[in-house]
């Protein structure tokens, strides 16, 4: 790890004042479970590390009639233990509970999970987020791509590593970002973007912005997540599906279906959503939606297996709601 300065501000405002205009100026530190690895591998080398741990206002879960607001420093463990979350958003609790190990769940935070960097081994080995070879061309399609995207976008072949993101996107949640200019809300669905160069980040957050909270609207949608993992622990899922539905008069009247770990951002399966709309949620419809969800998949040389896994995840997530 390269040397850096450290500060531990007591408020979000103080934290923002310690950040700089570029990513090299400073990085935020929450649980450290990803940032320290990134720094040890020299993937990021900030001049300053700004610890959020003293900012108590980021540790709260607040429930209002319209929204559940989860502070960025709430840990996965706290999320799985919070009754107000468990009752309304089982989908999110499954995603948080699936995260790897007690050690990571006790220290990994909601903000850190959403902002963790992709696990693409080319990225982690220093080839940049777009995994560019010496010839300027992407390495992933011609390399070992067994865990990469089946829905790549442009030259982005990594998968979004966050387990919470697809669940939150399905629940129509937003992240709250605070910067010197004030506060803005971005739907989780739009939080991730495709970097055009290796210098750009894969999310819309800017270097001077702190993710302060996640807000989930209290819409009463039925929701579920299903994860498929190779190893139950100490690893990320191979494919997941998060669904959120409203059923009225025996028919699906609204449907959101997101796939995780198969694309550079949470992948919205609009064809699956369309298949579900206006029909009863029965086995036949669910099977059709699962097939529709992976329509248009463009698997690479080593990850065709993920297509079937993604379809199965959709089927099982939906089946758990009937």
């Amino acid at each position, binding site marked *: 790890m390269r040397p850096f300065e450290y500060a*531990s501000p007591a408020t979000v405002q103080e934290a923002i004042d310690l950040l700089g205009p570029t990513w090299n100026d400073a990085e935020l530190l929450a649980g450290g479970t990803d940032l320290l690895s990134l720094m040890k591998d020299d993937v990021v080398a900030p001049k300053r590390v700004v610890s959020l741990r003293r900012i108590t206002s980021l540790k709260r879960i607040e429930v209002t009639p319209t929204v559940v607001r989860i502070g960025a420093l709430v840990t996965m*463990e706290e999320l799985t233990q919070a009754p107000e979350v468990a009752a309304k958003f089982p989908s999110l609790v499954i995603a948080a509970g699936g995260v790897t190990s007690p050690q990571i769940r006790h220290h990994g935070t909601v903000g850190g999970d959403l902002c963790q960097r992709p696990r693409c081994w080319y990225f982690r080995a220093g080839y940049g987020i777009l995994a560019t070879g010496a010839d300027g061309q992407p390495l992933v399609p011609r390399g070992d791509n067994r865990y990469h995207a089946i829905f790549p976008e442009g030259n982005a072949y990594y998968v979004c590593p966050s387990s919470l993101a697809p669940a939150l996107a399905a629940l129509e949640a937003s992240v709250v970002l605070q910067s010197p200019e004030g506060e803005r809300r971005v739907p989780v669905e739009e939080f991730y973007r495709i970097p055009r160069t290796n210098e750009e980040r894969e999310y819309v957050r800017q270097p001077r912005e702190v993710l302060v909270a996640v807000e989930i609207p209290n819409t009463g949608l039925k929701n579920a997540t299903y994860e498929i993992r190779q190893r139950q622990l100490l690893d990320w899922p191979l494919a997941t599906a998060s669904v959120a539905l409203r059923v009225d008069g025996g028919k699906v009247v609204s449907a959101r279906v997101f796939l995780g770990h198969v694309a550079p951002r949470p992948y919205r399966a609009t064809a699956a959503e369309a298949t579900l709309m206006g029909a009863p949620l029965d086995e036949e419809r669910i099977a059709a939606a699962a097939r529709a969800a992976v329509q248009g998949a463009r698997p690479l040389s080593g990850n065709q297996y993920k297509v079937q896994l993604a379809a199965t995840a959709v089927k099982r997530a939906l089946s758990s709601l009937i």
Partner: protein
Amino acid sequence: MDGQKHDRRAGPPRRGFTRRAFLKGSGAVAAATALVPGSRAEAQETGPKIYGPGPVPIRLRVNGEDREVKVEPRVTLLDALRNHLNLTGAKKVCDRGTCGACTVLVDGAPTYACSMLAIDAQGREIETVEALGPDHPMVQAFVEHDALQCGFCTPGFVVACTAFALRNPNCTVEDVNRALGGNICRCGTYAGIREAVVEAARKLKGGANA
């Protein structure tokens, strides 16, 4: 990695840089630098202070004692324990939060010490395997159930198992599987570990109630 290289105390002093001069120099810095947030000095300060990148004095509460060390902000809790506090029970294996060999308790929660900065661990209650001692029911149960082979993963497992057992006195072998998923044993001693945890959990509960 760098942290460890940097921290190594052993080896000949570099030319033109004697140990005596080094100690004198660091003393002067220590006197000039206030303790970092989380320590008692912090209360008097206004606005966040910036520390480092050179060594800064920090105070860690380890196994019930306040310990002062002088480390760069980049030094992990694991390196501070092993290289500065002579607590070598927690092991460094992956150094990336993927094996559990470095597990310690921070405010009672199982923690990868390799994935926390020492400077950020101030003001927290840190417990290492050394605090348990040879007579601890979990250590005894590991011996009785032959729950180790090479033993390199063992300190991390013992700490993670103790944290779990204290919260789950009536656990079953199945519960243990999931709860201990953050630790890996290359020698494959899992069967013995599971039995050790179930047994020790009941003893720890008895102990707490007695």
